[in-house]
């Protein structure tokens, strides 16, 4: 139907203008390999466009976009044989591991690209729920918004964010400054 297609096209353009770069970062959080990442990103864009036919404004465009994107990515993980065989852990387990990964941080100047690479590696070892939380947190979303997208309570999202901050501080502190706060 042309009317529905126009509505989907308009919403899609609006969503890409507002959240396009965030969606690319999100896709990279699930697939680091450039080819696979591009495939997933296309899958997300297509799912988003198809979903807009049913957009009824019951939630904000941002929440809608992130839900579709994360659910598409979660579905992608569940389908992927490579991902299925990978052991994924929770933020709590990651926190318990403590400073294992921080051992590498003794160099005084870590290139930003290297930091990002390690951040992606950390994100990709997380289970889908915690991966969603950390990716949404990195996009600057607060606990209430993260709760709305993921479906967990805002209190629980706040606890998760607290853990994320602690893990990031532990693992990405600058060389030489190893004091725990």
């Amino acid at each position, binding site marked *: 139907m042309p009317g529905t*297609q126009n509505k989907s096209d308009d919403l899609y353009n609006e969503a890409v203008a507002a959240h396009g770069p965030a969606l690319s970062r999100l896709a990279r959080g699930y697939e680091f390999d450039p080819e696979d990442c591009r495939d997933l990103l296309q899958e997300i864009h297509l799912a988003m466009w198809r979903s807009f036919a049913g957009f009824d404004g019951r939630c904000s465009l941002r929440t809608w976009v992130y839900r579709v994107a994360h*659910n598409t990515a*979660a579905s992608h993980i569940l389908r992927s044989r490579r991902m299925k065989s990978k052991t994924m852990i929770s933020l709590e387990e990651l926190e318990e591991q403590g400073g294992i990964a921080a051992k590498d941080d003794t160099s005084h100047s870590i290139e930003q690209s290297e930091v990002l690479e390690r951040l992606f590696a950390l994100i990709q070892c997380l289970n889908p*729920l915690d991966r969603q939380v950390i990716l949404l947190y*990195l996009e600057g979303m607060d606990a209430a918004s993260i709760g709305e997208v*993921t479906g967990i*309570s805002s209190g629980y999202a706040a606890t998760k964010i607290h853990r994320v901050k602690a893990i*990031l501080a532990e693992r990405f502190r600058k060389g030489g400054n190893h004091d725990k706060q």
Partner: protein
Amino acid sequence: MTNNNSSDELLNLWKSQKPQSISLSAKELRDASSKLERRVYWRNIREYMGAAIVAIAFGFYMVKFQTVLLRLGSGLTIAGALFVAFHLFRKGSTAVMTTDLESKSCVEFYRTELVRQRDLLLSVWKWYLMPFVPGLGLFLLGMLQMVLRQPASHLHYGMVALWFGATFAMCAATFALVEWLNRRAAKEIQKKIDTLDQHTQAID
């Protein structure tokens, strides 16, 4: 460095990335959508082809063999293959086109997908293995009957018993292996569901 300072720096670094942002044109989106639908269509065709091959092979046996047991076994195997194809059509064994992406929160969606996959694996014996058991069982008995009908001078009972035993054991082992692998995979999925429930219900 405080947790907040460290996180803020990372947040800035995260957002400063210049990822390849894509925007698909309306035509590209429609083309991609049609391509996805074609992929689903051909996936279904491939799944039905399997059933068609079984139906053709056992249809040939139905015509070729004259005994009741072999004909009945072949007919039931064809019915089993058609039942499996119908089940695949109704449920879909692999969700290529996932729906409900927007109506559910991420936790709800992820849990629903896990439960769907677990249940599909646990019910494999019911919709994928069992439908073939009566047909293949009768067919095997029909083959045995046909061998035993030969003149006694041509028969080597030891060999017949060995052939029947080996064929029966091979079928049973294949079924048992498929069932065991599926149960193992379902158990892994259940662990994920339990962990998810623990994490989401503990604080909610």
